[in-house]
């Protein structure tokens, strides 16, 4: 190569040494993130087991008793209320993980405790930092969802043999929402309450209006659009198809997947672009 004008041994050594980071950089970032997550393992486990227990019990058992008593078993989408609500709670759990891991830790990495700057001073590249964070969160999300699904089985809330795929549907929803939120958070130079607003005016309404606790069709049409644009609605519906074989036209199932994959990819690419812009001034 003509660019190698300096002492051969130096540039040759550099090229050799850069190779591993070019290939595996994102995993090294994920490794770092896991070590950080280990410092709050307690929270992860309690949230991973405790909150599904509470939700499944309160809604799937408590509320379900009233719903089923009044409407008869099978009145909501042809199944008991527990079976109806459980996959939606699973999908929401993924959104919860995403809204934890893709907001404040991102703000932290760019600004408050700029570890991303430190990573970029090493051979790691901005896109790899984004990829590494995404990889680590997806894995954490899968761990949470597997626990959740195990509890669903224990409650008898996942009758279909394909139910295990609800885990993937939920994770896809978390990823679709998460990468977009990550990209948005990356654009913030300072948090003057935007993230709290996101929690209050995006995450909470999304949970309420995404067909989580009752079918979207219960709403008047002019409110249903919230569900259509909500990654949570798409992942919830997809999870229901798997967990109890909810009946919907095949094209709609395809739409769920396309929307979720589309959002995930778009958010991911957007987050990568912002990372380059912020870290390579």
């Amino acid at each position: 190569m003509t660019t190698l004008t300096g002492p051969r041994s130096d540039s040759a050594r550099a090229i050799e040494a850069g190779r591993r980071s070019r290939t595996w950089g994102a995993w090294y970032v994920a490794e770092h993130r896991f070590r950080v997550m280990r410092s709050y393992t307690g929270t992860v486990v309690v949230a991973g087991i405790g909150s599904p227990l509470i939700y499944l019990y309160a809604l799937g058992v408590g509320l379900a008793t009233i719903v089923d008593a009044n409407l008869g078993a099978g009145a909501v989408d042809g199944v008991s209320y527990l079976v109806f609500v459980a996959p939606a709670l699973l999908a929401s759990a993924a959104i919860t993980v995403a809204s934890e891991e893709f907001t404040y830790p991102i703000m932290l990495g760019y600004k408050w405790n700029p570890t991303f700057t430190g990573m970029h001073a090493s051979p790691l590249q901005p896109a790899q930092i984004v990829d590494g964070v995404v990889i680590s969160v997806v894995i954490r999300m899968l761990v949470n969802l597997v626990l959740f699904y195990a509890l669903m089985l224990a409650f008898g809330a996942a009758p279909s043999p394909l139910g295990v795929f609800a885990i993937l549907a939920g994770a896809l929803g978390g990823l679709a929402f998460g990468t977009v939120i990550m990209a948005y958070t990356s654009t913030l130079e300072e948090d003057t309450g935007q993230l709290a607003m996101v929690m209050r005016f995006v995450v909470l309404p999304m949970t309420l209006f995404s067909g989580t606790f009752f079918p979207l069709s219960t709403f008047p049409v002019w409110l249903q659009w919230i569900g259509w644009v909500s990654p949570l609605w798409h992942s919830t519906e997809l999870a229901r198809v798997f967990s109890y074989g909810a009946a919907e036209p095949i094209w709609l199932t395809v739409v769920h997947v396309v929307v979720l994959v589309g959002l995930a990819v778009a958010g991911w690419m957007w987050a990568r672009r912002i990372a380059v812009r912020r870290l390579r001034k």
Partner: protein
Amino acid sequence: MSEPVIVANELVKRYGEFAAVDRISFEVAPGESFGLLGPNGAGKSTTMRMVGAVSTRTGGELSVLGLDPDRFGPEIRSQLGVVPQADNLDAELRVRENLLVYGRYFGLPRKLVAERADELLAFAQLEEKAKAKVDSLSGGMKRRLTIARALINDPRILLLDEPTTGLDPQARHILWDRLFRLKEQGTTLLLTTHYMDEAEQLCDRLVVVDKGTIMAEGTPAELIRRYSTREVLEVRFGSDRNSEVAARLSGLGDRLEVLPDRILVYSENGEAELVRLTDAGLHPITSLVRRSSLEDVFLRLTGRSLIE
């Protein structure tokens, strides 16, 4: 002389219309300790970021270890150790863990990283703090940990951006001692500073930078010889009288510099100037004769003092 490890030629970095770095050229030889001395905003950190392959240059040529940072960023960074101006240790991890995760970024095997982490904790005199939280460390300890982290990949070049800013005198001396050891071991150092004593302590050679351009280049001793006199007499007559008295001092020394709080008389013999001054019937409130420093060089070159 062996081939330089850093070559900057007419290097430019522009943000819109503003040229943070405006055609800077310098070379750093292997094993050399090279400094960029200048006030805040002179373009030192920007230069550092370009050499560190985390900022793309707007113009000119730059080669680090024979490679172009625009094309071989990760490769160049694999051979650098970077001590940034603001600490960016991970406060969510413990002291030793910070070294472990950082070593992995370079693709080094876990076992090797663990061994080096222990060696470097010893080097940084932080062995007892291995399991401590980062936030519990003092400023000086954090800096030493950052330096240890920068050494985890056994770098060819260590980049230090304002390494001792914000540290108390004792912590600075400990840090200088550590850096001096690295220098003795043959590590190439590139550092920015706005402290002239730091530049005198650590740099074999330096450039004085102001407003994005190089004002002078040389060893600290050369620069002092070229731009200043051997000694300086500092006299104070009280803030409101300094400029008034200055008019009566013309002819004293080789050169006069009137600052708001004091007058500097540049001369080969400071004591002799003081005698001439008192013989002329002038009685300063305080007087001090000292050796010229890089501060005087900077004052001469820019008409401003380094720390404003």
